[in-house]
């Protein structure tokens, strides 16, 4: 069990872009989309049985035909701008019913990914996730950026449409990145590799819903395209973003008036103070989430009974 590479292409000063699922799958959608747009080629995988429970069985006429596990795959692409190794994990290796990876298994998987990065000579790794924040869904998402060493900060400050943690309202440079998208930064640091987590913003009121938020993903893609000098057509993700906003607007229009008013106020406040970052209190956030939970609980009940 371990890493299986069935191809080891010669790459020139490559970067690695790694991602596992997280909130709203903002990061995963971004990296999957980029990988697809670049038509990156699969070169290997991490053997799943040590990390995952099977996800699907197929039985035909009594015989078990297949047992599928969540995948953890490596891809590569040579580009005129930069050679890239992608790593995409379909799930995080979790202990019991927890949502995100932690503990020895997470650490082991992070080290396997770094092993591959080092094998190909990657000197920088990007991970991606979501930044849950008090923005309105009609606004452009920005990208929160967390490096694993201070030396990269000067460079990051020149990137467009980004925020360091110290630039986020009320954060004062503090925060946390849950699961492997965060842990990989730490393990990379331990092993002497620069790593940066890029997180697309997602509105606080959409974080728990089972819908994608492509606007956050698009912001991440735009940043990586710029940094790695990639030539890709982003019209697909742009169209998806427009359609998704329409869907969210429909949902929004059906919200109870009280919840809607609070969210409208969120938009108003964030537009007014110019920072795009609404300075709402924890109580405001809690109230919005409670109202929305109540709304969706009632909606599910109605749907179930109809």
């Amino acid at each position, binding site marked *: 069990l371990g890493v299986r590479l069935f191809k080891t292409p010669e790459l020139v000063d490559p970067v690695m872009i790694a991602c596992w699922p997280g909130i709203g799958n903002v990061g995963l959608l971004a990296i999957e989309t980029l990988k697809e747009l670049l038509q990156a080629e699969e070169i290997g995988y991490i053997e799943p*049985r*040590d990390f995952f*429970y*099977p*996800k*699907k*069985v*197929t*039985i*035909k*006429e*009594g*015989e*078990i035909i297949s*047992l599928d596990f969540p995948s953890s795959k490596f891809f590569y692409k040579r580009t005129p701008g930069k050679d890239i190794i992608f790593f995409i994990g379909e799930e995080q290796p979790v*202990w*019991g*019913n927890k949502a995100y990876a932690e503990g020895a298994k997470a650490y082991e998987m992070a080290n396997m990914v770094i092993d591959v990065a080092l094998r190909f000579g990657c000197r920088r790794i990007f991970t991606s996730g979501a930044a849950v924040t008090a923005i309105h869904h009609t606004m452009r998402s920005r990208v929160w950026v967390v490096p694993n060493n201070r030396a990269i900060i000067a460079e990051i400050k020149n990137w467009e449409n980004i925020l360091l943690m110290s630039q986020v309202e009320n954060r004062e440079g503090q925060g946390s990145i849950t699961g492997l998208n965060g842990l990989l930064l730490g393990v990379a640091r331990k092993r002497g590799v620069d790593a940066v987590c890029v997180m697309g913003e997602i509105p606080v009121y959409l974080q728990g819903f089972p819908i994608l938020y492509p606007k956050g993903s698009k912001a991440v893609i735009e940043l990586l395209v710029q940094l790695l000098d990639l030539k890709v057509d982003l019209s697909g993700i742009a169209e998806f973003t427009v359609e998704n906003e329409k869907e969210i607007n429909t949902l929004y229009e059906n919200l109870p008036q009280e919840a809607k008013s609070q969210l409208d106020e969120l938009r108003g406040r964030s537009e007014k103070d110019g920072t795009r970052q609404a300075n709402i209190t924890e109580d405001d956030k809690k109230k919005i989430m409670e109202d929305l939970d109540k709304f969706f609980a009632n909606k599910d009940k109605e749907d*179930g*009974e109809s």
Partner: protein
Amino acid sequence: LNETSVYKLFGQAEMPGSSMIVCWHEDGGCIGNEVAKYLTGALSMSIFAEIDPAEFFPMSGVIVENDVAKFPECRFYVSYPDNLVLLESAVPRAEWFKFISTILEIAEKNCKTSRIVTVGSMISMTPHTIPRSLLASMNNPESREYLKNYNVDLNLDYETPAGQRPTMSTYLVWEALRQNIMGISLWVPVPFYMVSVKDWAACSRVIKFFNNRFNLNLETANLDMQAERQNKAIADFLERNSEIGEIMRKYISNTGITEAESSKLAGAIEEHLGHGDCY
């Protein structure tokens, strides 16, 4: 236990060609629990090995259920005269592959087992008044021959639905093939409103299969009596409780019941028959 082993042996159990029955706790209808209890008692099986739970379960305290503190147990029993091994175990919460590898190591190295048969239930929409059927899934086509004369449905077609996961039984049977061990998962349908209680008819169906297939010469009349008593208890309850009785009548006549009625029916049956305590 030594540093590398997660299991402890209490004796030698080289039983070439033996069969291993695997029963899981907390199975719907208490099938795994009751089948294990019945077979280990009726065959006077003795404990042969035990898997240490520390790596596979959160050692963060105990859950108290029906007044009793629960603790995960994973024990192997043997019956030498019947050439039979039985594993009764809680379903691990982590390190599933290591857990399965441990079972297979004990099966292959210590017991010389040639086939593994797991026991499990599936939630069914058929009422309790219909005799329980038995379905099988298997890890190779040869198992079909092994089961063909035992009134088992061998034509199961199934794909894990979205949002669900394969069972531990399926995982074990799949991995058994790597060790060249024949693997069979038996499935008995349990009416949805009996998932939390002991379904005696379903238990009886499974035990009778093992009795016939392994020539165990067990007296099974008491199992039929238990099932009959349970059916009568349900009938009496439905007679006395007109609202639940009406729901059951609608259900049996297939005129359709709502989600709210389903959950009322399941709750009432559980309350009347008592929670199965499938531990």
